[in-house]
């Protein structure tokens, strides 16, 4: 079908005075497939939108190009308008002639504005519509781990009308909190609270409990997970819409530092609690009880909270002298500082050290020697009992689990990659959540919030019973696919699988609901079998076409800008009227990981003198590895350029946050200086 484009220019109330709109209009009207070029003062407001609507209904156009302020501000308005008119919103491009053109440069910018619009027109010619369809999702959640978090998750889901299955490795529900007592910080006994929760779970129709069971695999994708469960000798498969992991943590109760000779009076937290429950069993009241923190784990909130509670309890119930040795007391939890004050007021003594204390056995008691920095003196305390600091470790089997699930862990080995875009409870795989202790959040207040967050996220995904997706927006051409598995390995959201439908050829298949639209797969595919509508190679290269003058005679800088960071920084620079050279042309991409080697090389072929690939800070990519891949590709491209006799410094990766307008401008200016040198 013949392409017919309607072009709408907005001069922002007539304020974009450094663009000659009449000249732009005349120039564009001469292009073959342009049906008309309209100019407006306020395209985004009602009048402007009405004008667009009447043009669309009147003329027979099948593509729309709008040149106005940043798409970050206005695109959604036009998308909504097009949807209301029954016009596919995928057939629209917005050229940013305000924040990234008129506001960003001194002097006349008509030539740049014209080029930006032509870039948009070139891209728009090749745009294809994308259908929105419904994907059914299973309205059932699997909770892995039947401790406090697991049970609470199930109960909260049930209250929202969602069926849940809880899979618990042990023979009883309750987890670590049941084993160890101490709902640290609260009046009620943990076991009492847990018992009542357990009863609630048992009596809840929406909750199924499988004890002495483990999961062996999670296949599938958000809304449709197929989980293999092992219970005893049975192995069976069940389908779920979402999976919430609440596998808790493992405590090393007597880490090496605390292991002295047998029979020494070093006890675990649990043992102290048992003593406090039945002090009469001891016979003799312990005169001195000591706690050591920060000797084994420098960064534990839970350690501080437990010690504060236990120390207070020991003081109150046993009347002993209580000492707490610590380096930095962790009070960044609600109520912790107050608890600290109360504990001190009750006479518990806190001794701060810089060097770890020495512990030894002396006359059947445990001697703790440390330099108290407040007194500036060496202190020696002989304790009847010394309570060991626990070391919190990731729960048993985390490594295996993350490998089965194909998700990451953090730098301490706990579940859930550290990338901030996953906070609070998401994983790379949509529909799989990590809650509480297994992701390193050990204090009960934060754990409770994690539970509720995951419950809400799962509810949003599953409650409607179906999810709306853009069908095939990123899709694999089964015929071209060489089944090299590159995309499957590279997809950060694990949204691609190997399938073979109807006994036809094997191919990779992208699951729309799990796909987050980064384009890393499209860039990595060696057979060019993956098409990312809106950002296909052809569409990107078409934008580059509009830039070309003769090769080698040009001074343009192409900046591929990630929409989560650099594009926003560029807009901010425009708002702040930070000026930079006007030979910059920005191409917006969903992620720096979409940028391919051939895009950069073609940019140079089309006349660019420099190329910037700008994405998020390392470790902060919304798609986890996009900016790292961009960096590796650019490094490789630098070698390729060197081979071809071109200065490798003409292509550079820039990492920045969305607020870093100054850095954006600095990098552009630096590149502009560099290319001038030739």
């Amino acid at each position, binding site marked *: 079908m013949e392409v017919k484009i309607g072009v709408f220019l907005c001069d922002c109330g007539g304020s974009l005075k450094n663009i000659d709109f009449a000249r732009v209009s005349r120039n564009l009207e001469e292009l073959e497939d342009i049906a008309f070029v309209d100019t407006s003062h306020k395209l985004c407001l009602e009048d402007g939108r009405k004008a667009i609507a009447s043009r669309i209904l009147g003329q027979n156009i099948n593509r729309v190009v709008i040149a106005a302020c940043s798409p970050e501000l206005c695109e959604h308005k036009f998308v909504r308008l097009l949807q209301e008119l029954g016009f596919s919103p995928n057939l629209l491009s917005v050229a940013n002639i305000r924040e990234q053109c008129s506001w960003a440069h001194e002097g006349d910018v008509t030539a740049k504005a014209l080029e930006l619009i032509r870039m948009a027109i070139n891209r728009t010619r090749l745009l294809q519509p994308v259908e929105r369809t419904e994907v059914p999702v299973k309205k059932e959640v699997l909770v892995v781990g039947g401790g406090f978090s697991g049970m609470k998750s199930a109960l909260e889901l049930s209250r929202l009308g969602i069926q849940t299955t809880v899979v618990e490795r042990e023979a009883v529900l309750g987890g670590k909190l049941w084993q160890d007592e101490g709902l640290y910080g609260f009046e009620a006994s943990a076991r009492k609270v847990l018992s009542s929760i357990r009863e609630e779970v048992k009596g809840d129709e929406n909750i199924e409990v499988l004890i002495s069971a483990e999961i062996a695999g999670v296949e599938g994708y958000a809304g449709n997970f197929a989980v293999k469960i092992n219970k005893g000798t049975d192995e069976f498969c069940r389908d779920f819409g979402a999976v919430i992991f609440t596998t808790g943590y493992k405590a090393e109760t007597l880490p090496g530092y605390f292991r002295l000779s047998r029979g020494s009076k070093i006890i675990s937290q649990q043992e102290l609690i048992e003593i406090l429950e039945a002090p009469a069993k001891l016979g003799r009241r312990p005169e001195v009880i000591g706690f050591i923190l920060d000797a084994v784990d420098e960064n534990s909130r839970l350690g501080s909270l437990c010690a504060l509670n236990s120390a207070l309890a020991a003081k109150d119930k046993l009347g002993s002298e209580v000492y707490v040795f610590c380096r930095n007391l962790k009070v960044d939890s609600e109520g912790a500082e107050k608890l600290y004050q109360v504990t001190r007021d009750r006479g518990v003594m806190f001794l701060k050290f810089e060097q770890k204390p020495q512990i030894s056995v002396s006359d059947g008691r445990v001697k703790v020697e440390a330099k108290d920095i407040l007194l500036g003196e060496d202190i020696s305390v002989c304790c009847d009992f010394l309570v060991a600091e626990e070391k919190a470790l990731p729960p048993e089997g985390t490594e295996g689990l993350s490998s089965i699930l194909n998700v990451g862990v953090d730098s301490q080995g706990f579940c859930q990659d550290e990338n901030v875009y996953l906070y609070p409870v998401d994983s790379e795989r949509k529909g799989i959540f990590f809650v509480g202790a297994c992701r390193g959040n050990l204090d009960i207040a934060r754990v409770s919030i994690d539970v509720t967050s995951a419950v809400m996220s799962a509810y949003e995904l599953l409650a409607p019973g179906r999810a709306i997706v853009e069908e095939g927006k990123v899709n694999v051409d089964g015929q071209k696919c060489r089944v090299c598995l590159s995309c499957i390995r590279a997809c950060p959201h694990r949204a691609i699988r190997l399938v073979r439908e109807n006994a036809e050829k094997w191919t990779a298949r992208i699951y729309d609901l799990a796909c987050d639209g980064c384009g890393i797969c499209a860039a990595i595919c060696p057979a060019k079998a993956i098409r990312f509508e809106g950002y296909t190679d052809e569409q990107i290269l078409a934008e580059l076409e509009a830039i070309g003058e003769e090769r080698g005679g040009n001074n343009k800088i192409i900046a591929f800008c990630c929409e989560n960071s650099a594009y926003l920084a560029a807009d901010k620079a425009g708002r702040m009227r930070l000026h930079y050279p006007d030979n910059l042309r920005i191409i917006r991409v969903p992620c720096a990981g979409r940028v391919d080697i*051939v895009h950069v090389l073609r940019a140079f072929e089309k006349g660019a003198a420099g190329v910037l690939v700008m994405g998020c800070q390392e470790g902060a990519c919304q798609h986890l590895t996009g900016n790292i891949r961009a960096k590796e590709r650019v490094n490789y491209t630098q070698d390729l350029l060197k081979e071809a006799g071109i200065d490798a410094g003409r292509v550079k990766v820039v990492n920045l946050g969305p607020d870093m307008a100054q850095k954006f401008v600095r990098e552009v200016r630096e590149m502009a200086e560099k290319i001038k040198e030739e």
Partner: protein
Amino acid sequence: MIIAERKPLEEIRTMIAGYEKILVVGCGTCVTICWAGGEKEVGILSSQLRLASSREGKELSILEGVVERQCEKEMVIEELRDKVQDVEAILSMACGIGVQTVADLFEEKPVFPALNTTFMGMPEGEGVWTEKCGACGDCLLYWTGGICPVVRCAKGLLNGPCGGTRKGGKCEIDPEKDCAWVLIYRRLEKQGRLDLMRRYYQPKNYRAVKRPGRIEAVTA
């Protein structure tokens, strides 16, 4: 599958020097999978060549193409029959077999290899391929628990380790490599077939396959 690697650009440019219109053709099978000569790499190489030429003020026009399997005559003819008409030379990004297939079919056109065919291997992870098989024609994997000492032992030993194995089970010659015989021992141990280690393997007949190899299968 066959693993290949692209030649340095300088070498490639020397080959095509003097030609102003060439066809760069990739292969959609092995070399696509090992990221050496698929459609993507055809695009990259063509870009590089054009950039390098234009830097020197030289003319270079490139036609790009991909054959699904460059070692199948029918597929080559189908894909390239028209494309070769207007070009002066062909730069093939296939393995050595594909290059020769194209060269045989279009004898009047010079055909050059853009890749060095290196070994037969498999992917070890993303972007990493390792050699597994040496095409010796007399497969002894039965005896070695599925691990080939011909290729994976630096000395090609057939009867156990050389005695120079480093700590951690690493090869004496290449400390990055695992000693193949340690791997073989462990594998046979797992399978309870360690008795096979006692077998004395005669010196290998490296001429088990007459070179150049040729097989005539029975046509059913």
